């Protein structure tokens, strides 16, 4: 019984250490400079960092297939960028506070397009 408890505790410890080692800053400088950060849910960010925040050009890849390539400000999607949806749809244009804000083009996976002004993720007719 004692051996079993020890085995469970030891396995938990090893797993925790392995998980801790696979997340965080994996390459480069994630404080000020260029680096790659891996989050616990396997989301990755590779790009420029300023004062430990995502700032400048970078690429954020979500495990479920969303990929954002473009400008970041204070860790948010801000500026010009392109978001790839998991089904192949894209939005290319201006971003503010993590949302489609400004001029941009949404392209559906079947090729249909909508270009114009977007506000907080909604197309302004």
């Amino acid at each position: 019984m004692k051996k079993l408890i020890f085995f469970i505790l030891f396995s938990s410890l090893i797993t925790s250490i392995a998980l801790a080692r696979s997340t965080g800053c994996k390459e480069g400088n994630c404080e000020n400079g260029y680096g790659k950060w891996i989050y616990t849910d396997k989301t990755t960010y590779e790009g420029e960092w300023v004062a430990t925040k995502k700032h400048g050009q970078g690429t954020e890849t979500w495990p479920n297939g969303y990929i954002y390539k473009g400008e970041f400000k204070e860790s948010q999607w801000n500026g010009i960028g392109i978001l790839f949806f998991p089904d192949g749809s894209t939005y290319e244009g201006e971003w503010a506070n993590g949302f489609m804000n400004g001029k941009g083009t949404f392209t559906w996976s079947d090729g249909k397009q909508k270009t114009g002004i977007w506000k907080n993720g909604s197309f302004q007719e």
Partner: protein
Amino acid sequence: MEVSKNSFKTLSEPVKQFGGLISIIILIFLTFFILNNIFGEGDELVAKMKIEEERIAQERKLNKLISSLPSGVLVSFDGTDNFKLSDELYEAVCKATKLIPQRAIMGANFLNFRAHEIYTINGNKIDETFVKWDDEKNKCFAGFVVSGNNVGVDETVKVSGEALSFLSTGIDTRVYFIKNF
């Protein structure tokens, strides 16, 4: 009374035994009838048990199917390197899936700013999630409901869309992409 006692005594032994047997059988039937009325639910209980048995059988079938799927992303559309679900598998995976992880919710919120606001203000709290197979459209729909106080106003927002990809962990499946645009 005395007359009936005497007439009983005059009966032959086999007739007496047969009468006793019939009495015992009636007593047993009566006892079960009374007990069934007190504790039994009759046809209703049998119907409930059948539904439960069917549900368990269906769940076992789905669990067997899920364990046979490859681990990783499963999609219902072309154009990716991920495992492409056949129409039959897509329906089965949809029916077996209950979980919607945070990134799928955040992705759907890109196209619904109000939902995003309530979700963020309330510490990423989700009231309800659902994954449903639509027999008429032959499609899988998934979504979630967020509610809370947004700048002094109580709001409830339901976000729903087509579930186009799933994550198979080997133990369960999760909705990975809700297309709500």
